[in-house]
């Protein structure tokens, strides 16, 4: 039966009349906390009842405390009774109506529990505990039958707006949740002995910063801190820069100073706070009371630590599983436990008897003796313990299919040719070649090469445009037991000469009249012209020993000369064997040879097709440069398997929008550069993923074209997935920190690739090879260090986050260019986009700026695009200039040509009166003669009024102006709910339905929200 201070039914307003949010929400859950205390048996229930009655009657405002006495017809320890108690503990209260609820559970065995749930804005941790102890105290004389008012502090809701943001989800980038996961998770952190008197507070924060530093690639770690020993207004930001070289004791001292810093604004400002995805609650604990610091995670990850009287530290991790994967939570818990122990041990005044205790605690070993690491540093703390290391390694290590591989590409091809001799293998402008014909031509070519003095193990240059002769030449070289070195005739002659020389290719097969610097130039037609009688030792026989490398492809790194990557036959054969079943590659398929032979994507096109019995259609250079022509070819030749770089595919999607003729493509494989899934939206409008599968494959020349594969669906597009999938069978990936240590799931680090695709190394570059290809002491496997940034999901999927060096620094901010790019791609009018950092004049760093290039929209949509971007990008990430291009410039390999874009941006900057208004230039620094109108535009679109009218225009599908009345326009309560959602999504403060009634026009609502924003962000 409820006791309530007033029984006046008139006070009980109907549910209808309560505008706004009648139900307790996740926000209330985040602000509610609970104490459970057993009631001593000797306490008479009449005393208890009267205390509860008095508590209810003292509530301020009246009727804001509810006390319930409930019979539970089950013994105290019955599992159903326990569930009952848990349910009661987890039931939130709300700030406005009932901020305190006391429930007395009376069990059938006469035991009693008091469950006290309070709202943080009204009662702090200490108050809650004292109140609970008062109600349940056994020795209740009449004199202490009073209720001290300080139990309930009515304090200004300074922290309210901040706590409320918990409904704005702020999912951490490292959470790697399952897409369908919902719910929350709590996981206890083991108790650790600590210094008495609250000295452990700084230590646990320092430990948390150490751990979180592994997950955020940022200058410093920050989170929301609720440190409420007594009062409730201690919410603030906490941030700490982490230097792994720092001694743990020094780190703990720094954390201590931060914690004691009075000036909250110095610690962090409110806008940073609102985006923090981690919250920490510190409170004075007691081992006799069961305390729950929050009933819903305040932020996707919330850590609560309690400090008992004797200094013991114990805690709980609360996580929103829609934002943080349970495995990530689990690994965080392990790391936190180890880090807390290490920091506490290091922070303790060194015991003379145990010099190495701290060090031992730091790495979890029993290392004794006077090691120099007696004062451990952050880097001495391994991220994962051995079982977790094994788990992260195993997650992305996929066993190879059991079938044995042929010994060489030549023998594998010969087998296919035997099976389908009359099937068309190669189809070019000059006609078709069947498998038998191609096989014979290559055998002949091999003999011609031998005659020319090519020995097994030699390297033979091939410098040809895409034509049938290119494939004949490659196969001839392979069948001669040599290694081919493909070179693109489009490359400058210096580079060609250098490559041939570096590869030691004495013979180059080319149509060029003379090849720069080559000893021996061979026209490809000579391979097939004259039939050379076969000798026994080379015709169709299975060689027994694996031949030398199949090819050496030159890749240009960001620094230095191009280097030749030596790839053996077995790698190519493994690639085909790893993909054949999953991609259902077979004789019915028609592939295109679209890419330059110098780009290893073509290795996949050629051998993926020819070793699975498909037909390879050679795409002439001019067709590959025209998306319209290329699409026509796809229709005409009934191509089923298409391989594209995302840049080239963007152009094809554009051409596809207006083209006629049905595509037969059943599989599109993306490779060569990072894919932004937003690019696929227009494609999915026209093509079902059930008919045409899209597979994104991450790979590197050094690991034989592909490493991982991820099928893409519209759901992935909607989720903005960055996953490139799991490793192919036979491949393995691992994500490592700078010193090569395996990182936990979700933490970003360098992608290492191992398994069957790893190349032999760089031709003639032993030092470089040794530095990039290494035997990993942790796993015992050979790995290639990719220089790419990635993170691992618990199911072994890899997120590709760009090049490690694609992070640029601008005016002190770290910026991922890809992040900006994907914001532009989200806009429906944009089919392709690129963002570059443009150095200031004479390399002036202070005047460097970001430039965005977009393909798709008309020039007049640039302001709209700018507004769109401003909605999700912080100021420092906004490009100064947005330029519309017909197409993005591409490199010979079909990737976006960043260097050209930077040059373009430079040119535009030098001609301020840039032509035809396609460039929207808002950078006053670069163009001092401009009015800075763009900047005003920026602040304008950020204003609530602007956003509100935009939202309402969307909602009502008609133009809405500042003075339009929501309800007169046809608004009702359902639309109001939609409006309030959209407003929240736009990052504006919340409002209630009631407030909408009072402020029905955009302008009035905007001023209301503005006044509220000022509170949020002082």
């Amino acid at each position: 039966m409820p006791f309530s201070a007033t029984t006046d039914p008139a006070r009980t307003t109907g549910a209808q009349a309560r505008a706004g949010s009648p139900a307790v929400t996740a926000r209330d859950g985040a602000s509610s906390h609970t104490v459970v205390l057993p009631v001593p048996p000797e306490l008479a229930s009449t005393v208890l009842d009267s205390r509860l009655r008095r508590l209810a009657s003292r509530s301020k405002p009246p009727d804001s405390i509810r006390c319930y006495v409930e019979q539970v017809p089950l013994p105290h320890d019955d599992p159903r009774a326990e569930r009952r108690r848990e349910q009661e503990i987890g039931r939130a209260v709300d700030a406005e109506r009932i901020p305190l609820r006391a429930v007395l559970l009376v069990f059938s065995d006469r035991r009693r529990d008091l469950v006290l749930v309070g709202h943080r804005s009204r009662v702090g941790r200490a108050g809650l505990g004292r109140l609970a102890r008062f109600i349940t105290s056994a020795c209740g004389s009449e004199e202490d039958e009073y209720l001290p008012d300080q139990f309930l502090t009515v304090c200004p809701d300074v922290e309210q707006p901040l706590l409320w943001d918990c409904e704005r989800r702020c999912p951490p980038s490292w959470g790697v949740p399952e897409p369908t996961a919902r719910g929350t998770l709590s996981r206890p952190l083991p108790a650790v002995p600590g210094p008495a008197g609250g000295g452990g507070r700084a230590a646990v924060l320092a430990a948390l910063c150490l751990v979180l530093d592994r997950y955020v690639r940022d200058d410093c770690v920050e989170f929301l801190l609720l440190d409420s020993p007594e009062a409730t207004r201690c919410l603030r930001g906490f941030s700490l820069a982490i230097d792994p070289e720092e001694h743990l004791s020094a780190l703990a001292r720094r954390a201590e100073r931060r914690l004691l810093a009075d000036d909250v604004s110095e610690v962090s400002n409110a806008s940073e706070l609102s985006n923090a995805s981690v919250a920490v609650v510190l409170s004075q604990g007691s081992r006799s009371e069961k305390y729950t610091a929050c009933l819903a995670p305040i932020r996707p990850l919330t850590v609560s630590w309690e400090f008992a009287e004797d200094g013991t530290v114990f805690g709980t991790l609360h996580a929103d599983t829609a934002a943080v994967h349970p495995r990530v939570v689990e690994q965080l818990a392990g790391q936190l436990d180890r880090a807390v122990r290490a920091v506490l041990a290091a922070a303790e005044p060194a015991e003379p008897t145990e010099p190495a205790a701290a060090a031992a605690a730091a790495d979890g070993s029993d290392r004794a003796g006077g090691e120099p690491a007696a004062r451990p540093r952050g880097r001495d703390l391994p991220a994962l313990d051995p079982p977790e290391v094994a788990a992260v390694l195993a997650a992305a290590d996929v066993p190879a299919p059991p079938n044995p591989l042929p010994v060489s590409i030549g023998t594998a091809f010969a087998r296919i040719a035997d099976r389908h001799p009359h099937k068309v293998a190669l189809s070019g402008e000059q006609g078709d070649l069947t498998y038998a014909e191609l096989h014979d031509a290559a055998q002949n070519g091999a003999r011609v090469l031998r005659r020319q003095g090519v020995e097994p193990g030699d390297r033979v240059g091939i410098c040809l445009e895409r034509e049938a002769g290119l494939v004949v030449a490659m196969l001839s070289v392979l069948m001669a037991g040599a290694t081919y070195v493909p070179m693109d005739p489009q490359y400058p002659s210096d580079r060609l000469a250098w490559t041939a020389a570096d590869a030691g290719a004495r013979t180059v097969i080319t149509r060029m009249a003379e090849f720069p610097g080559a000893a021996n130039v061979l026209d490809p037609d000579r391979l097939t012209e004259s039939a050379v009688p076969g000798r026994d030792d080379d015709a169709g026989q299975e060689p027994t020993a694996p031949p030398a490398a199949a090819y050496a492809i030159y890749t240009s790194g960001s620094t230095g000369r191009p280097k030749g990557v030596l790839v053996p036959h077995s790698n190519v054969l493994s690639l085909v064997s790893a993909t054949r079943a999953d991609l259902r590659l077979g004789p019915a398929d028609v592939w295109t040879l679209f890419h330059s032979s110098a780009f290893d994507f073509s290795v996949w096109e050629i051998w993926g097709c020819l070793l699975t019995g498909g037909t390879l259609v050679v795409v002439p250079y001019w067709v590959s440069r025209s998306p319209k022509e290329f699409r026509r070819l796809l229709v005409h030749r009934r191509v089923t398997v298409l391989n594209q770089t995302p840049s080239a595919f963007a152009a094809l999607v554009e051409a596809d929008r207006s083209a006629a003729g049905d595509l037969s493509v059943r599989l599109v494989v993306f490779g060569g550069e990072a894919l932004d899934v937003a690019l696929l939206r227009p494609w999915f409008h026209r093509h079902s993923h059930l008919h045409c599968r899209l597979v994104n494959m991450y790979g590197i020349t050094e690991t034989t074209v592909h490493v991982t594969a991820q099928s893409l669906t519209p759901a992935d597009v909607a989720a903005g997935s960055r996953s490139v999938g799991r490793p192919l069978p036979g491949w393995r990936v691992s994500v490592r920190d700078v010193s090569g240590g395996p990182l936990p799931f979700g933490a970003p680090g360098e992608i290492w690739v191992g398994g069957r695709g790893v190349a032999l190394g760089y031709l003639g570059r032993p030092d470089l090879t040794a530095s990039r290809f290494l035997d990993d002491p942790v796993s015992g496997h050979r790995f290639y260090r990719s220089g790419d940034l990635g993170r691992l999901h618990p199911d072994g999927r890899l997120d590709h986050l760009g090049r490690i060096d694609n992070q640029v620094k601008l005016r002190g901010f770290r910026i991922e260019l890809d992040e900006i790019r994907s914001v532009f791609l989200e806009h429906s009018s944009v089919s392709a986009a690129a963002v570059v950092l443009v150095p200031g004049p004479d390399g002036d760093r202070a005047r460097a700026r970001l430039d965005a290039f977009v393909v798709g929209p008309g020039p007049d949509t640039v302001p709209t695009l700018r507004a769109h971007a401003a909605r999700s990008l912080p100021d420092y990430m906004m490009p100064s200039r947005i330029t519309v291009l017909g197409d993005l410039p591409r490199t010979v390999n079909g990737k976006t040509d960043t260097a050209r874009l930077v040059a373009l941006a430079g040119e535009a900057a030098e001609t301020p009166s840039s032509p035809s208004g396609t460039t929207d230039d808002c950078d006053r620094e670069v163009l001092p003669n401009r009015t800075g109108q763009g900047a005003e535009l920026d602040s304008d679109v950020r204003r609530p009024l602007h956003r509100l009218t935009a939202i309402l225009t969307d909602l009502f599908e008609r133009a809405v102006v500042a003075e339009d009345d929501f309800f007169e326009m046809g608004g009702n309560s359902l639309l109001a709910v939609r409006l309030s959602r959209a407003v929240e999504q736009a990052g504006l403060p919340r409002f209630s339905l009631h407030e909408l009634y009072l402020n029905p026009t955009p302008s009035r609502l905007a001023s209301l929200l503005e006044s509220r924003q000022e509170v949020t962000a002082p």
Partner: protein
Amino acid sequence: MSLRGRTVLLTGAARGIGRATAVRLATEGADLVLTDIGRDDPDVPYPLGRTDQLERTARSCREQGASVLTAGMDVRSQDAVDKVVTQALERFGRIDVAVSNAGIGAPAGKATHEFTSAEWSVVLDVNLSGPWRVLKAVAPVMLAQGAGSIINISSTAGLVGYRLFATYVASNHGLIGLTRSAALDYAPFGIRVNAVCPGPVGDDDALECRMTAVVAQALGLSYEEQEAVDLESVPTESLVQPADVAGAVAWLAGDDSRRVTGSVVTVDSGYTVR
């Protein structure tokens, strides 16, 4: 335990299908707000649920570890419904499921034109307007939560006609219409609205389920005669038990039916198949 942490508001919980449903939902881990009229009504020719019966239901639920709030509530009064919703929110903070089960099977037993205006009104008021009042009170709560499941207990009389039962049949048909429309209104907001249509339910002493007797009385038949008619009418040769209806409600209340809205689930021993 599919309803752990959920709060259910249930009308007509004193006995019968309502009691079976309450206990079933309690075993699924739900907390319950159990309501019934708690007194007889001059316009209804048979005894309605009593408060002691409601408390008996509540005790059975508490024995499953459920937290239970009971309240006397006449679904003919919006004020009464609103008040209970407010109490429920104060106690539990949320309402995840609302089951409108309260209903009356008589006055009946007359040709359509023979019903008095009062007889017509009382049946419509309880069986059709009652669920609407419940929905009216809980929808704002569920809208704010962004989730909810509303379940209306209709009847095979909402799908086919019955001789001499025009008031009951009309009200239950109406309830299905209400369900379908409301399902559309709230589908974008995560609130599902569904109906369950029991066929003739066998009486059950433990649940104090006596509807067969009420129908028999209305038609001037003996209990045995009515039961024989009912048995004859269903292909399964056994009557629906209250627990069968409770099972359908439990499914509609939980996440297993997350994509089910506007549907009409018949639990009728095959009655409407032929």
